């Protein structure tokens, strides 16, 4: 009731805030091991590994830029993602370029289980850190939250549907694959946000902040179509950790499910010694995967985080090579009566089950996912936007892209191409342009940027060959490619009703000036003209030479009629497609 502060040590007169005194504790551990064994606990090493891989992930996104991409494997995480390799092998029957690097992750999983999830996955780290930072639960409540739930089967259903669809040629794993999802989220939301902050600091006089910019030397801030939605998704998915720890990893992650399926053959796993285990459930306190280490360990759910080993007061848990899948037949006596023994030692735990090998998905439900995948493919492909017959005129693909059906077999929507694009022209496609199947795939928006003539960076970083690695010679149709001609992205058109010289008696021709082809694809009809007010002006009225236009879109970008440009590019005439050639003479002969 009283408003007076209660006297405490911090308020005691004549005394400042007491700092806790710190002395290194160099005493040996109770089990006789030296002091440094505490620092080198396996969970600390795991945290260091997570920090390393998260840092590497961000670093590789940071070097994904013209001035920094000096041979760095910028798309390393995507190329090492075995789900990307496996699903594109299903959809294309090929393994593109570096995708064999998935073996670097596949083999450790077959030996050790889902170590990737808690030792390397940057998205997993993000979820774990969030859960740890904002944890308000008591230990008892954490134990309950970390028990396995049937809801966690969801990821296997998703994986099944996505893989069946991939086999039909619709690659949708990128919607949920954690690496694709996180690269996309960084590209579209986090990097622009960080750069905005850094630029503000630089403007306040902290000039060194500008050297950290993800995207230096861009005169305007980068913008992305639908960034709010990608941002809302990451906030929602990360926020879900507050209700279900590791929600994404346990419930949705198709890569986790893929590695979970593989884990059934893993040679190592966490093993519980029933002669030591007192069934106290403390191992669940920090269990990241909700894999039931207190009972029968679910191999496919275990993230190998080792928190259970750390938390076990009885040292009953170990990570072992080739543990027995079942011990019930080796136990003598009765568990119920307390007379059971194993190898001469009394059995303390009441639970003799030690392993659940495979994911908890009944066979009939696997069948359901297969059927769902089979049905989902035509549902998506016969949506007009991605179908050959209705392909959107604004779905202009980056240079080097394979034809649309092959593109949809390969693109994982990781948006690395969008990340590296120096002019910001590459944008994640919205539903209205590309349907659900093409959601977040790269398309060009020439109101934002244009395709830089000598730039082929998007083809350099594409992990799956949706944008084939393309040299500048090939893009421009030089040297050995002279016969094939330049890569055309589309064709530019004039809207004479909006064009200043055509419709408004006003000189302009920015479009002709910036047209980069040689000779220029934009010519002018020059006319000396007496305006309504009697003034004489020279109007250079532009026209298009379609056989020269490569669809780079710089005319549209620089057109002063900025809201709805008087010259604009659509996908017709793109050289990757036989269906959408424009000129008879430009038709491919193949």
């Amino acid at each position, binding site marked *: 009731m009283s408003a007076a502060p209660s006297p405490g040590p911090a308020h005691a007169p004549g005394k400042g805030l007491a700092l806790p005194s710190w002395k290194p504790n160099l005493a040996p551990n109770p089990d006789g091991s030296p002091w440094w064994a505490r620092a080198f606990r396996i969970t600390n090493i795991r945290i260091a590994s997570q920090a390393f891989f998260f840092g590497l992930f961000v670093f590789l996104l940071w070097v994904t830029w013209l001035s920094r991409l000096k041979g760095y494997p910028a798309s390393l995480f995507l190329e090492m993602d075995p789900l990307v390799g496996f699903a594109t092998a299903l959809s294309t029957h090929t393994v593109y370029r570096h995708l064999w690097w998935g073996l670097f992750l596949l083999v450790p999983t077959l030996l050790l289980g889902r170590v990737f999830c808690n030792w390397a996955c940057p998205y997993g780290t993000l979820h774990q850190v969030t859960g740890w930072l904002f944890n308000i639960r008591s230990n008892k409540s954490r134990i309950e939250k970390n028990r396995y739930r049937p809801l966690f089967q969801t990821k296997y259903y998703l994986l099944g549907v996505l893989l069946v669809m991939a086999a039909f040629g619709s690659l949708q794993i990128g919607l949920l694959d954690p690496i694709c999802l996180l690269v996309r989220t960084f590209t579209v939301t986090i990097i622009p946000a960080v750069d905005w902050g850094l630029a503000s600091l*630089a403007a306040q006089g902290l000039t060194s902040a*500008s050297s950290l910019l993800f995207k*230096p030397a861009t005169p305007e801030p980068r913008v992305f179509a639908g960034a709010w939605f990608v941002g809302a998704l990451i906030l929602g998915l990360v926020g879900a950790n507050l209700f279900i720890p590791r929600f994404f990893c346990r419930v949705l992650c198709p890569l986790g499910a893929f590695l979970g399926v593989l884990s059934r053959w893993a040679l190592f796993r966490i093993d519980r010694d029933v002669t030591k285990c007192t069934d106290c459930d403390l191992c669940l306190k920090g269990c990241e995967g909700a894999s039931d280490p207190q009972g029968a360990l679910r191999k496919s759910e275990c993230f190998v985080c080792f928190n259970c080993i750390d938390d076990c007061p009885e040292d009953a848990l170990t990570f072992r090579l080739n543990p027995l899948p079942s011990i019930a037949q080796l136990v003598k006596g009765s568990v119920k009566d307390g007379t059971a023994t194993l190898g001469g030692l009394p059995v303390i735990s009441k639970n003799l089950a030690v392993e659940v090998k495979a994911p908890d998905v009944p066979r009939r439900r696997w069948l359901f996912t297969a059927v769902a995948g089979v049905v989902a493919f035509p549902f998506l492909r016969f949506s007009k936007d991605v179908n050959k017959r209705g392909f959107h005129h604004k779905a202009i693909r980056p240079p080097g892209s394979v034809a649309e059906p092959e593109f949809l077999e390969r693109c994982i929507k990781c948006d690395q191409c969008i990340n590296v694009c120096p002019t910001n022209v590459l944008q994640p496609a919205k539903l209205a342009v590309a349907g659900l199947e093409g959601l977040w795939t790269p398309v060009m928006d020439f109101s934002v940027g244009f395709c830089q003539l000598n730039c082929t960076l998007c083809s350099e970083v594409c992990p799956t060959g949706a944008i084939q690695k393309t040299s500048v010679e090939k893009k421009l149709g030089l040297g050995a490619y002279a016969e094939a001609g330049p890569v055309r992205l589309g064709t530019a058109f004039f809207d004479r009703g909006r064009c200043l010289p055509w419709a408004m008696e006003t000189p302009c021709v920015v479009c002709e000036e910036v047209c980069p082809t040689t000779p220029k694809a934009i010519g002018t009809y020059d006319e000396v003209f007496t305006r309504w007010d009697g003034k004489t002006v020279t109007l250079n009225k532009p026209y298009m030479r379609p056989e020269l236009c490569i669809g780079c879109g710089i005319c549209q970008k620089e*057109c002063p009629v900025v809201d709805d440009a008087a010259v604009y590019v659509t996908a017709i005439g793109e050289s990757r497609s036989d269906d959408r050639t424009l000129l008879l003479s430009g038709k491919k002969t193949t």
Partner: protein
Amino acid sequence: MNENRRRFLKQLGTVAGISLGAGYVSLAPSGWPLSLSDPDGEGGKPREKGLRLPENGFAVDPSNVLPLLGVARGADLDAMLKAAVDAIGGIRRFIRTGDVVLVKPNVAFERSAPLGATSNPDVVAALVRLCREAGAAEVRVADNPIESPAACFARSGVQRAAIDAGSEVYLPTPSDFRLLETPGATHIARWPFFWRPFAGVTKVIGVAPVKDHNLCRASMTTKNWYGLLGGRRNQFHQDIHGIIADLALMLRPTFVVLDGSRVLWRSGPTGGSLADVREGRTLVASTDSLAADAFGWDDLLERKGEPLPAYFAKAAERGLGNPDWKLTNVREIQVG
């Protein structure tokens, strides 16, 4: 009872405080301290105060005895540049120990140097070295290209050449632009200006290639200042001659170098084919960009006899130079 009354009074005080505080900040006349009142909606609009460049620009004192145009012909760009600058008084007339110098090349497009669409990187490097040798404390190279800045500076070779010669390269970022006021300008009296490289600068030197231009016929040292602006530059073409005359008013350089080592004689300003380029073997230095450009028109673009583009007369009317270069003192030197 006493405690209950105290609690009630505290609560009442909070209610009154929040009400009165909110009432004050929203209703007090706008001049009063802490007032947020804005009855007509004008108060919330941004009001950026414009910056100004120095009154006389970055020019040094004029001379009555020295030639106005130094023209050097040859192949050794370092020696040619030195000879051309020596002809108009030598680098020490312009650069003093401790000067912070901005060199403004034309790097508008992503073209390799031989295509002639950008300043020759070797000339930029020679100019940087010349300033360094004259004692400049710092040399900066900056441009705001039309195409992607990083790509333009890399492909043209200007970035590497400028850094190797001992200068710092400034590429534009969103926070680098401030409103510049140019009193008397027709179109760009207030316009976003690439300000960051100008902070602390004492001398400004333009170095521009000789280029044909689809709209204004010729792009040389005067049009080169286009690359210092941001904002909606694509409106400039509606009165390109008026804009170039404004650019001459906006920036009064220490001197300019007309880089006639190559001449983009057609298909400008972008070019793209070696057939559009011819060897010029000439460097011109001058404190008068109109005189230098007029010389370029007659001698390098070889358009002698054709009337000069309209921007020359518009700028000359403002007293910003003399396009009639034949009346001025010209010194021509053959190097090597």
